[in-house]
């Protein structure tokens, strides 16, 4: 196993990775920006290096500086976490050229999945069902209108290089499309340096369900079942759970098989996730592949008992997976609620100082937290400040546990989405598992 790992990330995920490294006796090297000097991940790592000013472009996305630190600290490997540099092909390649191991797939696989359009083609060729849509870029509003009318509204406009919901919008008619097409292309250009757009048909009443995979350098690909992540705001997940309440056993198996086929098609290595949209008749369609650890990975860890970060490190080191598919079983149920520093109604960010933080404790609770009492939440990074993961032997028990824990979870000084989370767990539709991607729109916003 590696002797040392640099964690090129911040917040709760940096802490999460450090935790597993400590258990495996791996020396941990943290990096931080000027705004994160007092962050928990800096204190918990064995070593920490300042890499630049607050803005991500000057710090957490500063490839040159991170490589410089990795060499100075003699890091054998770099774990990118999620977001930031985790799906940056140039970064993966550059550190490899420096003789440092990237804890993730090779740049070929990241590239194949980095462009949503390329990914669609690759998946179609591999025999994985894709959403009806364009296989080539759409460059003008006129062209977009023509295609939309051909497949029928509503359609989803998507940026090929987009992510986090940016550059993505549903439109219901020509007028909406005219308004949305160019502005989304422009935003994608600003955010991702690429304004290529394409169109997909909207899958009605869809659930967002994904399959967790683990693949090694010896040709083994395993699945760790599914996660349902349908409850979203601004196209970002709010509540995730495993296993999905929607899937029939037969569909679950079919999706796992398709996901394994997809990974094999690009000789994928390390942990990865294939996201699907699933309609209420159990039809599923490839959405995208995330070539990294996911925010919501803890629910899979809770139901399988497998530490995904440990498996990632083993695979990156070159070890063969010792796990066998038949050893991986679903035990119980697990739900993750993301705690965002934001207004619970408008979802606008709410940075500021945390004046009180009270986290309930029980054996069925897991906290992956990036903040502490008196912590200053800055406006520079993602609004997610904590993840609350609650488990139980059944879904019903888990929902009950979550409700109890949320009623005792306290964050003061900043606005958080806790009121929203409490509203969600009270809803009959949530208790019944009727969690379509339109959930928040359908049950929460409609009453405001």
């Amino acid at each position: 196993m590696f002797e040392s790992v640099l964690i090129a990330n911040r917040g709760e995920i940096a802490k999460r990775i450090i935790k597993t490294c400590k258990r495996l006796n791996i020396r941990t090297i943290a990096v931080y920006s000027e705004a994160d000097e007092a962050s928990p991940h800096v204190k918990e790592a064995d070593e920490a290096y300042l890499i630049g000013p607050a803005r991500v472009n000057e710090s957490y996305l500063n490839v040159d500086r991170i490589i410089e630190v990795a060499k100075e600290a003699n890091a054998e490997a770099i774990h990118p976490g999620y977001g930031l540099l985790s799906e940056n092909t140039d970064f993966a390649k550059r550190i490899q050229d420096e003789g440092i191991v990237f804890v993730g797939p090779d740049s070929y696989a990241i590239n194949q999945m980095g462009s949503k359009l390329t990914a669609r083609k690759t998946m179609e060729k591999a025999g994985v069902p894709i959403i009806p849509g364009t296989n080539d870029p759409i460059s003008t509003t006129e062209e977009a209108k023509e295609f939309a009318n051909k497949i029928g509204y509503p359609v989803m406009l998507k940026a090929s290089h987009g992510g986090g919901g940016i550059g993505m919008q549903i439109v219901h008619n020509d007028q909406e499309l005219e308004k949305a097409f160019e502005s989304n292309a422009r935003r994608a250009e600003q955010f991702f340096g690429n304004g290529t757009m394409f169109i997909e048909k909207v899958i009605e009443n869809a659930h967002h369900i994904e399959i967790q995979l683990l693949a090694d350098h010896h040709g083994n690909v395993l699945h760790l079942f599914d996660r349902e992540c349908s409850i979203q705001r601004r196209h970002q997940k709010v509540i995730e759970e495993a296993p999905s309440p929607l899937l029939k056993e037969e569909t679950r198996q079919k999706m796992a098989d398709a996901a394994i086929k997809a990974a094999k098609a690009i000789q994928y290595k390390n942990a990865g996730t294939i996201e699907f949209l699933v309609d209420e008749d159990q039809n599923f369609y490839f959405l995208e592949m995330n070539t990294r650890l996911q925010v919501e990975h803890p629910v899979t860890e809770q139901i399988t008992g497998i530490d995904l970060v440990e498996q990632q490190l083993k695979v990156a080191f070159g070890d063969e997976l010792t796990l066998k598919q038949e050893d991986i079983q679903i035990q119980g149920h697990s739900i993750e609620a993301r705690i965002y520093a934001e207004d619970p109604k408008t979802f606008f960010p709410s940075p500021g100082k945390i004046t009180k933080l009270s986290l309930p404790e029980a054996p069925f609770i897991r906290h992956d937290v990036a903040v502490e009492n008196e912590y200053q939440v800055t406006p520079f990074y993602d609004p997610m400040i904590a993840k609350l993961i609650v488990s139980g032997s059944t879904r019903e028990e888990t929902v009950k546990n979550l409700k109890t824990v949320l009623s005792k979870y306290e964050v003061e000084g900043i606005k958080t989405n806790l009121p929203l989370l409490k509203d969600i767990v009270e809803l009959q539709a949530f208790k019944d598992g009727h969690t379509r991607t339109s959930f928040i729109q359908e049950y929460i916003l409609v009453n405001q």
Partner: protein
Amino acid sequence: MNQVTASMAGNVWKVVVNEGDQVESGQDVVILESMKMEIPIAAETTGTVKELKVNEGDFVNEGDVIAVIE
């Protein structure tokens, strides 16, 4: 006279009008950026931009006055 105020705390990413410009109700005045989210802040009345109270890169709190429209 009408004030344009920040609907969230964040950095002023872009100022899209100049002092003296004629703006219409609903037209963007600045774009704020916070926690990876951009929020355009629009004028609520039609008029002339009398004063811009912020520059690009400034930090504003929720409720801070960004511009005055007359």
